[in-house]
Every structure is written in structure tokens, then in C-alpha cells.
């Protein structure tokens, strides 16, 4: 038994279209990816998928104190309980609905599974020229013990619109739950989109999260990924630039301890000229934690004048922590500025002495320097509440006492 069996019996009891059946059959023939797959070489799903999960779910009402506890307090909130949409706001210029069927790229078997069996998620359409000041907050709660849930979300942002999102996936019990979340974002001309992912789930939680972004000309899309919690996290961010003057920005922080694993896979497909991409991922690894970074940048033959910047900097702060970092550059155009750097290091000795000479004890000095190292990747977050939460979680996890009102 295991997740595959759970899924098989679940699929027999639900009505799905012939097309989805076909996709599911294809998934079943491949199964979950293994470490033999190049894209999953350093991240094994084996232990995770051999567990038993509950797939049917109740969609219980979440009491408001729970919502308040995990919300950052924005007025526009979309709330899911075990997959069921239980709350959605009315916003002028924005239509928000539940799950819808849409086409997507399904090369990966995890995405095939999502396409075949996901029946929950949101569909957001932002009308052109709509500029939202306050972010849309999305809260996915898991209530049922040992739940496996899938979300399939679509965001379409019309010309000249500007919108920000804050997403949080939260398990409300201490069982081992798993989420397979897929979000597809279409950024039309001259749009600005910022998507913040707060990944601070319970120690038993597993997550596979994929975002595919399709950008048209003059659009800017930022995705910030903040990984503090969860036992297993795999993020796939894929950007496709289909027009000139697009900008794709990714910032990520992982602060892991115990046996946590976090894998960030990014892919920027520069298909058009005069575009930019920036990615900055910072990782801090304590205990037996494990980090994986794989950043692929593809510059197609016609995509001249591309500026692509990628960095992945890591601190290994224990003997048993590991990081596998792999930049992958495929550049087929000649007028391209592309830089990438990966560092695995210790703390700066000069800075450490400087702090100690100010009376700061060595452990505290190390923690503060680690905080400083990681915080660089959250500086670009434009939603103040998210930035503040990230700073607090960072300080908490590193056990430093900093005052963010200062």
C-alpha cells in the first residue's frame, strides 16, 4: 500500500472525463518520479509516497480564530479547508471562482496527477487596468489527518493590471499531510504581479508546489519563496517570457533544521529579446537538513539583449547538513549578459570579530550574522507584512532577538 494505491482506489470512485482518465493512466504507468529522473536526482519521494494518505476530505469549517492566527490580516482572503473553498472576497475588477479545468503543460508525472485528479483550487481573473493596493491572501488549510490534497489554480492578469498575492498552506494537526499544489499565472502586457509563498507548515507536512508563469511584453513577475517549516518541500518555478521587456524575479530563503528538506527548482525560459531575470536564493542549513537548488536558464536563439542573474548562497552550519546546488545555463543567443554564482560558506570571520569586539557573545554574533546573510533575500519583498513576518520567523528560527520596529 501507499499513496499510489490510495490514489488508485480514489480514482475508481470519482467521475472524471475520458481525457483525465488518460492522463491518470499515464501517471500510473510512470508513477512518482524517482532519483533516477534527472530533475529529482537529489530529492527522493520514496519515503513520502510509501505512506498512507486520506484523499477524500470533509472540508470542515475553520473557526475564525484559526484563520486569524495564520492570516496576515489582509481584507481580501481566499480560504480553503481540505480543498473546499470556504471563503472568497468580492473585489472590484477581480473575479474569484473555485476550481476550473484548464490546459497546462504536463511533462512531469506529478503535474499529470494534478491534472487528472485535482478538483479543487481557485480561478482568479484580474480585469485589465485594475490596480490592487492590498494583496489577495490565499490560505489553504488541511484539517483531516494524513490528508493528501491537490490544488489546481489559475490566475489571469489583464493588461496593465497590478496585483499581489500572499499564499500559505497550513496543516492544522500534527499528522503527516501532503499537498500537491499547482498554479498557472498568465501575465498580460505591462502587468505587475508579486506572489509570496510562506512555507512555514508543521513538521509533518510535505509539499510539492509548482508555479508556471507565462509573461507577455513589459510585464514583471516576482515570486518570493520563504521556507521555514515543513519536513519536505519541493518548489518548481517555471517562467516563460513571450514578449520583449519582461522581467522575472525570484527570491528565496530556506532556513532548515532537523531532518527538513527543501528543493528549489527554477527555470527561466527567455524566449524574447530585451528581457531580464534575477534570482537570489539563500539557504541556511542546521541539524540534518538538506537543501537542493537547481536553477536553469535558457536563452533561445532570438532572445538577444538578455540580462540574467542568478545566485545561490548557502551556509552549512552543522556537520550533517548538505546542499546540492546546480546552475544550468543553456544559452543560444550571443548578445547576452548572464551571471551566476553559487557559494557554500561559513560566516565571515572579520565580521564575527567585529561583533564580538562590541560585546556580542560568539553564539549570538553567529546567529545575527546568519540572520543578516539570509535577510538579503527578503529585502525585495514589497508587501511589508510579509517582509516583517519573514524577518520574525528568521529571527525566531535562529534564536536572535532583534527589534523590527527599530
Amino acid at each position, binding site marked *: 500500500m501507499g499513496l499510489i494505491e490510495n490514489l488508485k482506489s480514489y480514482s475508481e470512485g470519482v467521475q472524471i472525463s475520458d481525457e483525465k482518465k488518460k492522463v491518470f493512466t499515464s501517471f500510473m504507468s510512470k508513477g512518482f518520479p524517482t532519483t533516477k529522473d534527472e530533475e529529482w536526482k537529489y530529492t527522493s519521494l520514496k519515503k513520502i509516497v510509501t505512506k498512507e494518505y486520506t484523499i477524500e476530505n470533509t472540508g470542515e469549517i475553520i473557526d475564525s480564530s484559526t484563520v486569524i492566527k495564520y492570516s496576515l490580516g489582509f481584507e481580501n482572503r481566499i480560504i480553503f479547508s481540505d480543498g473546499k473553498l470556504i471563503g472568497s472576497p468580492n473585489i472590484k475588477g477581480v473575479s474569484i471562482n473555485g476550481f476550473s479545468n484548464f490546459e497546462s503543460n504536463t511533462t512531469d508525472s506529478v503535474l499529470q496527477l494534478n491534472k487528472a485528479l485535482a478538483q479543487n483550487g481557485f480561478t482568479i481573473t484580474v480585469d485589465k487596468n485594475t490596480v490592487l493596493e492590498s494583496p489577495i491572501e490565499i490560505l489553504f488549510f488541511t484539517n483531516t489527518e494524513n490528508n493528501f490534497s491537490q490544488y489546481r489554480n489559475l490566475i489571469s492578469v489583464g493588461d496593465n493590471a497590478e496585483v499581489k498575492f500572499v499564499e500559505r498552506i497550513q496543516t492544522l494537526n500534527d499528522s503527516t499531510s501532503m499537498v500537491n499544489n499547482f498554479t498557472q499565472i498568465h501575465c498580460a502586457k505591462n502587468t505587475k504581479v508579486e506572489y509570496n509563498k510562506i512555507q512555514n507548515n508543521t513538521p509533518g507536512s510535505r509539499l510539492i508546489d509548482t508555479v508556471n508563469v507565462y509573461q507577455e511584453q513589459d510585464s514583471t513577475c516576482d515570486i518570493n519563496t520563504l521556507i521555514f517549516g515543513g519536513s519536505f518541500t519541493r518548489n518548481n518555478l517555471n517562467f516563460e517570457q513571450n514578449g520583449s521587456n519582461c522581467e522575472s524575479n525570484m527570491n528565496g530563503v530556506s532556513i532548515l533544521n532537523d531532518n527538513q528538506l527543501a528543493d528549489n527548482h527554477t527555470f527561466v525560459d527567455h524566449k524574447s529579446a530585451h528581457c531580464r531575470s534575477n534570482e537570489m536564493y539563500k539557504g541556511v542549513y542546521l541539524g540534518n537538513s538538506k537543501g537542493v537548488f537547481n536553477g536553469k536558464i535558457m536563452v533561445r536563439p532570438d532572445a538577444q539583449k538578455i540580462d540574467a542573474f542568478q545566485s545561490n548562497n548557502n551556509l552549512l552550519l552543522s556537520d550533517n547538513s548538505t546542499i546540492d546546488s546546480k546552475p544550468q545555463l543553456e544559452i543560444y543567443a550571443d548578445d547576452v549578459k548572464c551571471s551566476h554564482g553559487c557559494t557554500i560558506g561559513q560566516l*565571515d570571520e*572579520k*565580521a564575527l*570579530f*567585529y*561583533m*564580538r*569586539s*562590541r*560585546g*556580542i*557573545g*560568539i553564539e*549570538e*554574533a553567529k546567529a*545575527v*550574522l546568519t*540572520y*543578516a*546573510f*539570509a*535577510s*538579503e533575500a527578503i*529585502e525585495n519583498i514589497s508587501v511589508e507584512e510579509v517582509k516583517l513576518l519573514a524577518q520574525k520567523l528568521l529571527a525566531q528560527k535562529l534564536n*536572535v*532577538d*532583534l*527589534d523590527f*520596529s*527599530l
Partner: protein
Amino acid sequence: MLQIKNLKAGIEDNQILKGINLEVKAGEIHAIMGPNGSGKSTLSAVIAGNEDYEVEGGNINFNGKNLLELDPEERANNGVFLSFQYPVEIPGISVSNFIKTSITEKRKAQGLDPIPTKDLLKMMREKMELLSIKQGYLSRNMNEGFSGGEKKRNEIFQMAMLDPKLAILDETDSGLDIDALRIVANGVNKLRSADNATIIITHYQRLLDYIVPDFVHVLYNGRIVKSGGAELAHELEEKGYDWVTNEEDKKWA
């Protein structure tokens, strides 16, 4: 307050300090001068506890404690402060949080609770005013993108906040224009008391026009080769270091 006896220290096989003797009493200001490469920064680093340097002999006594047995943070919390010749940039940590952390750690060492944020801010404002530091500076990242002068002023600001017993100012005047120099000197003078002492390391006489030392020492080739009163600085300015170093070179030739 501070007694240094026959201090020898170096890095790897290279002995930099070759037997330093120095006594500093509470209320005094000492200036240590000397050409580049004499060992002035090394001396200050050894006093502050920089572990890059190995102490090969001698001892340092600070208010009855053997300083060489203490960690850098313990020395600081006992009242030693070093204004760095090259202050370190720490991206990602604001000036205010840096200072808050050091004040909290100092109080912790004294068995005191953290100071309330409100009081801390008030204290910071006072000291900023003393040093003509502009608003907005507190939220900047520690020394990141600071000009040379801003970095030095930030050192003195920290000194003002930490209120040390012994302050060592290593080339604090370099990088300062004349107005900034005056402000910093004025700050140092205001912070002076009968209970604290200052060692000013410089190779120009300029700063000593504003902060008048009680003693001037010339450090050359790892030794203090001449000591005198404030007038020695003027003499050096007039005659140049050759006046002392030639004699010294002859002695060791």
C-alpha cells in the same frame, strides 16, 4: 587601568610586536604615532582580542584582570572598545539592531535586563545629536555603502553608546574631512571623564590639535621607541619620523 608588559605578538612566523611596554591610567589620553607598518593596528587588535594574532610573550593587565585570558566579547564587556581602522560592513543588519544587540549583550554580562526600546531610542538620538549624525542613519545596514567618514563616525557613535572605560581609536581621523574631524574630536572630548582613558592611534598630528594627549608614544618596528608629552607630536610633525626611525635603525643594524 591598563598595563602592558613586554608584549610580543605576531602572525605565523612574523613577529610584529617585539616587546611593548605601556601604562595607561584612568583619565589619561595617550597618542600612539608611527609610520605605516609599525604595528599600531596589531597592538590595538591584540588588546581587543583578535585571534588572528598570536601572543608570544608578555602580558596585558586591565583593571586587575589578565586581559589575554578573556574572549573578545568579555574584554568589551569589561570596558575595552576598539574603533576599527577598517570597520566591517555587515549587510542585512541595521545600525540600530546592531547597537541594540551589543547593548543587550553588555547588560546581560552585567546581569541586567535588556533596556526598553523607548529608552534605547532616546539614548541613540542624544548620541546622534552629539555627533551630528543625520536621521535615517539608524535603519541603514551596518557600514554598508558608508563613506570612509561615515564609517568612522559610526565607530564613535558605538563608542558613545557603549561608554567604555578604555577606548582605542585606530586611525579614526583618516577619511574624515576637517568638519567631521572637529565633530568627532568634540564628541570624544565630551565623553571624556576621570574614569575612562583613551588611546589615539594616528600617524598625523592633525587630530591631536583637537584632542590634546597627555602622552605621546612613537611606535616603530614593533617597539615604542620614544615617549613624551603633547609637544612630541609637534616635534614629529616638524622633523618627520626619520628623526626617530634613523636613530632606531642604526641601533638595530
